[in-house]
């Protein structure tokens, strides 16, 4: 059975960028900041491409929700080996309030529309750290889910996934269709090389609006405040071991 995989790719602030909070504390500064694909989404794309190379998956559709620039993220997925893309066009302003619930509804609608057998997502995004989209997508579709995957095997319509859990690994088996979320150790994503980038330019990216999918993207969450983590306090220098011991006694550490 050749499967169709839907892979979510989120455009986030690049992992190497020092994130700054906006002065009005409503969010973080995104203007003029380097963005790239969420690293967990890269792992999800890589796993889909590996399944395609094993001839288990026949088509990979990369989906991203957000402003026009998301097409660059989709293009990266196409250069990694995805077959076509779907850009769910949400304005930059509306994207600020686009959370896991809204994205799950979009992904669930697309999974049905495209007759996907498998939805592969990153376990979480490095910007909001929510870790909810995969779970909610599975719930909305009423499909089984395998979160925090560190190994994925497909045999017929049976999916076996090794999951990273507290203190060890758990192996579970389920029927397809299913939702899988990728953990860090699932694989090491490949780099897009020149011939792949060249051919990816010609792959199709379809653009749809959430309303076309019958999805209401209104947010149910109000952001009250976004704060920087507390600054680390300056330390104290001590000259001798005796000084150190008395300081430790003073602070009640010993």
């Amino acid at each position, binding site marked *: 059975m050749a499967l169709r995989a839907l892979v979510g790719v989120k455009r986030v602030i690049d992992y190497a960028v020092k994130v700054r909070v906006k002065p009005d504390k409503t969010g973080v500064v995104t203007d003029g900041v380097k963005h790239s694909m969420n690293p967990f989404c890269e792992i999800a794309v890589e796993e889909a491409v590996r399944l395609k190379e094993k001839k288990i998956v026949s088509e990979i559709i990369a989906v991203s929700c957000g402003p026009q620039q998301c097409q660059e993220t989709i293009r990266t997925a196409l250069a990694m*080996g995805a077959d076509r893309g779907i850009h769910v066009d949400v304005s930059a302003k509306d994207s600020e309030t686009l959370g896991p619930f809204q994205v799950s509804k979009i992904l669930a609608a697309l999974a049905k529309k495209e007759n996907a057998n498998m939805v592969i997502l990153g376990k979480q995004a490095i910007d909001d750290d929510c870790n909810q989209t995969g779970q909610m997508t599975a719930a909305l579709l009423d499909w089984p889910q395998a979160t925090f995957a560190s190994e994925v095997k497909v045999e017929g319509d049976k999916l076996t996934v090794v999951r990273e859990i507290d203190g060890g690994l758990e192996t579970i088996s389920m029927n397809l269709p299913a939702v899988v979320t990728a953990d860090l150790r699932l694989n090491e994503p490949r780099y897009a*090389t020149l011939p792949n980038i*060249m051919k990816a330019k010609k*792959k199709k990216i379809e653009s749809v609006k959430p309303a076309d999918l019958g999805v209401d993207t209104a947010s149910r969450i109000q952001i009250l405040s976004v704060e920087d983590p507390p600054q680390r306090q300056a330390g104290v220098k001590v000259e001798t071991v005796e000084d150190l011991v008395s300081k430790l006694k003073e602070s009640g550490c010993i």
Partner: protein
Amino acid sequence: MHAACRTLLRPLSLHFALSIRRQTGATYLHSFILQHTEVVTNHLTPELKLLLLTPRCKYWHVRPEHWPYGDPYWAIYWPGGQAMARYLLDNPEVVRHKQILDLGSGCGAAAIAAKIGGASYVLANDIHPVAGAALTLNCKLNGLQPLPFLSENIIGVDTSHWDLIVLGDMFYDEQLADGLHQWLRRCIDQHGTTVLIGDPGRGHFIDHPIQKQLWKMAEYSLPESSKQENYGLTCTAVWKYQP
């Protein structure tokens, strides 16, 4: 000191002026290709030596917007072209004494394979002008006289008589695929041309209506290097188009 500098600079600036004048000429293109590609044989047709872009070449690592002469489609041996050239080398009776058009010739491998197989006339056509220079160099590298080359877009225009039209990896672009389909149909209707298509199963080819009128002639596993250049693809095939 100054005088010494000037004498050093003079031959340099002369060289610079000459190189600018030469930039549009065939000689410049030849030296550019020779400088920025390497001879490769680890593909489906190892008997053909081809000048190609590899990870050991500078432009492999340069951002696309800095590439001179646009995207170097001519410098990659695409899986569809590899299948086509392999098929022609293995089945010389398909090309012997025939008039052949290699459409979207790229590095020229299929055209070269057709000539080696005994074709009476081979014309390579590619809208990328650098492909012509690459074809000439690759012909020489394989002991052939340079094959004729045409850089005009003949899809939809020219329907001269060809016994055989071969095309490799031309269904990667949706718009191109549609125009191509109509035109190939016309060539077959008007001249009874045989059409062979090499494709590794790219999206626009698999989903195209042309699929219903294709017969698979041969299938090949892709060598490791080609898998690395075409993520997600593992094999390639030659199809006969019979509407």
